[in-house]
């Protein structure tokens, strides 16, 4: 067992579609310690959302099939939990902020009621009763925490009456109010303007620091993650390829994919448009054997075809899943 | 599109269609009805009974092996008449839908593309007027003004049917027109006609065809109702609705005269509805 808050071991998730079986997650290893802030970066379709949805076990099965692996949350395997335990977990331990705040809020209920519902259910999980007045109080309190002007008025508004930035903050409030140990934020602020996204991410960072909550921050915007998290995982085509402290990763990326990814981002300092990465992401129906980045990798070796490389340690809390760094 | 892709497409469509076994039931029923209608002369046990025929000795006799559905007031075999009756039901459906759909769709395309202009207002308000009159009432009114014939019944139903397609396509067209590919066509200089028919219409075909399949049942029902009240096909034409009407005075003692035609009306409508569900599954979410 582990004392980690989250410990995913060798998770394999497939999806059953008309054409066959898409082997999306190919042995994911991922850890979050208590109070730790972890970033998860990778491009569209690499499996980031599938991974975190698996932690909360909210993937619809079918078409998803959990083919193997373990997900330890506070020491217990989520994949073996009963319905009751899962419900408690979702109410008490983990909260999620989804990518699109507009889609995450129910358009026909007032925002205050939606927050109130979460308070009610998380209290139920703790087997404590809570009165209407208390719910209202706590709603106002959390709205103030997410810096909403005029909480009373906002509580009685419908999502459509609020701006994108405000809706995102409501989603954050909803995640915070259940006082969970783990917050999963899936691309928060991606759909928002840069200045508003900046505000939202700052807010998130401050709140998480205050409460000592752990956070998994998913983003395909590399820079957004950098200011906020302690450690970063890089994901490619269904598995983690590199994990390091933020400073280490951005200063000295080791995996060929990470390097290519960083190189493909245009720099504010100029220097023209970078090359991009040759090739395309693999087809999950028929993924390449061994390391999935191999077909696009400039350092391809015969070993790479044999089996997906495990994490090799390279210095203090820096791991790389690449045969260039071990396994000889 | 080459044949490889077409085969692949057909396979995929069949997969989607056949996921619900009831759709296949619907397909079988509909195909049977169509085949029987076409080949009624060969399939019916007594094809000569279809129109003018009398045999009063055998009139109003109950279902036996000789006459599976019994005989009617004039001694004609009911089952044979039912088979011929399929022709009129299908004819009703085909003519109404092929005449009502094109103008309905065209008006919907124009109104949707020109949404929020006077064109939109005029077209949709006219459609609203037609839609607000209860369909049966409208059909009856038209039929009573003209001579009661099958042809006029079809006309009546057509007149009241087109606005449903206008409304359907209006909703689709007005949201599609905001898609970027429409704007790209406009920027390039495509004419309004080519945008309506080349860009917007192909994206409306699936809902239109689904609706048409489901509408067949309704048209047949309304057509049968019109003939039931005497405003549609006239004797001796073997129309299912007329047959139900003919036997209505003899219920409950000679129940078969009305019951079997009625049951077959139900069967046809059910068949088309189930088929329509399958068509919807097949065309949706592509």
């Amino acid at each position, binding site marked *: 067992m582990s004392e980690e808050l989250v410990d995913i071991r060798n998770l394999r998730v497939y999806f059953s579609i008309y054409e066959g079986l898409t082997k999306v997650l190919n042995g994911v290893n991922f850890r979050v310690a208590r109070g730790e802030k972890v970033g998860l970066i990778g*491009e*569209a379709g690499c499996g980031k959302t599938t991974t975190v949805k698996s932690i909360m076990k909210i993937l619809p099965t079918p078409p998803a099939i959990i083919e193997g692996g373990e997900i330890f949350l506070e020491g217990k395997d989520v994949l073996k939990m009963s319905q009751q335990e899962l419900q408690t977990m979702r109410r008490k331990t983990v909260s999620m902020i989804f990518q699109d705040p507009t889609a995450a809020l129910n358009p026909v209920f007032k925002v205050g009621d939606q927050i109130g519902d979460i308070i009610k259910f998380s209290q139920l999980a703790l087997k404590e009763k809570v009165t209407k007045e208390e719910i209202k109080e706590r709603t106002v309190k959390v709205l103030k925490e997410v810096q909403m002007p005029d909480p009373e008025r906002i509580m009685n508004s419908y999502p459509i009456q609020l*701006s*994108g930035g*405000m809706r995102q903050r409501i989603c954050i409030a909803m995640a915070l109010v259940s006082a969970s140990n783990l917050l999963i934020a899936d691309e928060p602020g991606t759909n928002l*303007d*840069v*200045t*508003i*996204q*900046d*505000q939202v991410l700052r807010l998130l960072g401050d709140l998480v620091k205050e409460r000592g909550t752990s956070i998994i921050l998913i983003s*395909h*915007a*590399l*820079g957004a993650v*950098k*200011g906020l998290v302690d450690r970063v995982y890089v994901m490619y085509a269904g598995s983690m390829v590199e994990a390091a402290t933020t400073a280490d990763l*951005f200063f000295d990326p080791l995996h060929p994919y990470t390097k*290519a*990814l*960083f190189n*493909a*981002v*245009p*720099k*504010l*300092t*100029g*220097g*023209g*448009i*970078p*090359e*991009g*990465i040759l090739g*395309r992401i693999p087809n999950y129906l028929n993924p390449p054997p061994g390391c999935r980045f191999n077909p696009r990798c400039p350092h391809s070796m015969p070993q790479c075809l044999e089996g997906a490389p495990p994490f090799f340690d390279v210095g203090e809390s820096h791991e790389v899943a690449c045969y260039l760094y071990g396994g000889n | *599109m*080459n044949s490889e*892709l077409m085969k692949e497409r057909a396979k995929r469509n069949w997969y989607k269609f056949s996921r619900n076994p009831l759709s296949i039931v619907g397909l079988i029923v509909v195909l049977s009805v169509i085949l029987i209608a076409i080949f009624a002369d060969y399939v019916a046990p007594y094809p000569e009974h279809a129109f003018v025929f009398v045999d009063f000795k055998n009139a109003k006799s109950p279902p036996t092996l000789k006459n599976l559905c019994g005989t009617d007031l004039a001694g004609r075999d009911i089952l044979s008449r039912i088979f011929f009756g399929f022709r009129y039901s299908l004819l009703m459906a085909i003519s109404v839908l092929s005449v009502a759909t094109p103008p309905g769709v065209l008006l919907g395309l124009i109104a949707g593309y020109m949404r929020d202009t006077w064109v939109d207002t005029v077209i949709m308000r006219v459609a609203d007027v037609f839609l607000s009159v209860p369909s049966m009432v409208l059909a009856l009114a038209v039929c009573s003004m003209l001579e009661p014939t099958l042809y006029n019944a079809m006309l009546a139903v057509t007149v009241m049917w087109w606005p449903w397609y206008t409304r359907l396509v209006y909703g689709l067209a007005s949201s599609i027109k905001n*898609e*970027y*590919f429409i*704007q*790209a*066509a*406009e*920027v*390039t*200089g*495509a*004419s*309004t006609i*080519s945008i309506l028919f*080349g*860009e917007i219409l*192909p*994206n409306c*075909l699936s809902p239109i065809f689904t609706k048409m399949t489901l509408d067949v049942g309704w048209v047949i029902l309304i057509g049968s109702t019109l003939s039931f009240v005497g405003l549609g096909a006239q004797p001796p034409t073997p129309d299912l609705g007329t047959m139900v009407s003919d036997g209505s005075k003899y219920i409950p003692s000679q129940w078969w005269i009305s019951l079997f035609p009625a049951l077959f009306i139900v069967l046809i409508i059910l068949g088309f509805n189930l088929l329509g569900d399958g068509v919807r599954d097949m065309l949706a979410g*592509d």
Partner: protein
Amino acid sequence: MSERATRSHVTFMEETEMSGEIIAIKNLKKYFTTDEGVVRAVDGISFTINEGETFGLVGESGSGKSTTAYTLMGLYTPTQGEITYKGMDISIGVKDRPLRLKKEMQMVFQDPGSSLNPKKSIQQILEVPLKVHGVSAEGRRKRVIELLHMVELPEDYLERQPTKIGGGEKQMIAIARALATNPRFITLDEPTSALDVSMQAKIINKLIQFQKELDLSYLFITHNLSLMRNVASRVGIMYLGKLCEVAPTGEFFSKPLHPYTKMLLSSIPVITDEEERVKPEKVVSRGEIPSPVNVPSGCYFHPRCNECKDICMRDDPPMIEVEPGHFVKCHSEPL
């Protein structure tokens, strides 16, 4: 640095009688009437685009950058103001524009998913502009294959449907479509915002290559400032329908003058330390972007501005050329 700022209400038209100008926009306004009131999407902007250059337009929601592009392309008609193309007045809707103009001005849209008609094959999609401009069937066939080669996609894509190809490839087809009629000017509205970093790099590189080979001029709209830095030769930043600042790219990023520009530049998330150093001092962004129905009085940016003075709340500032080619619309000018 020139201290002698040109303090006059400089309009671009007067300055730019010089040749090489392909697009000129003069005091353009586009208002929409809605139930909530009049939306001043574009509220009096002026700028020019020179032949062969990439003019970048940057701004957040409600800034009016997309509306500007759409009005330029004729999808909207201007409420006021003038748009000229190579000196010809084109301040009219696209349906009224001459066909040869539409041959020369093309557009690439933001969302590759809805840029291509899902019910058509790639071939049919690419043929649309060719058919409109009267190319024969044989000519169309040849040109379509040529276009596919230009965007490095295989010929068997001709028969595919958009739903079967990836987002980046869809955008390549959208670009191919825009190039079909040999245009001179292309508007690109956030062409890579919906795509991943690696796809983005490929597409932008292609766009730059085409610009050189085919002598194209671009209006390039994006909210990604790091991308803008490497793509545009001149940049304009919009806020609530007005242009705040226009400058050559280097100056825009190294010497931003308008407080909004500084706020935006300082919020860009960057990866490397050297990029961090290049950013202006952090201006914490305050407040929400107001709705364009309810614009603030005076300078539209004043409620969020750190340098707001009394005059800012009353008067809309003039656009001043602080240095050659560097224009700012602000009451606090460098002295």
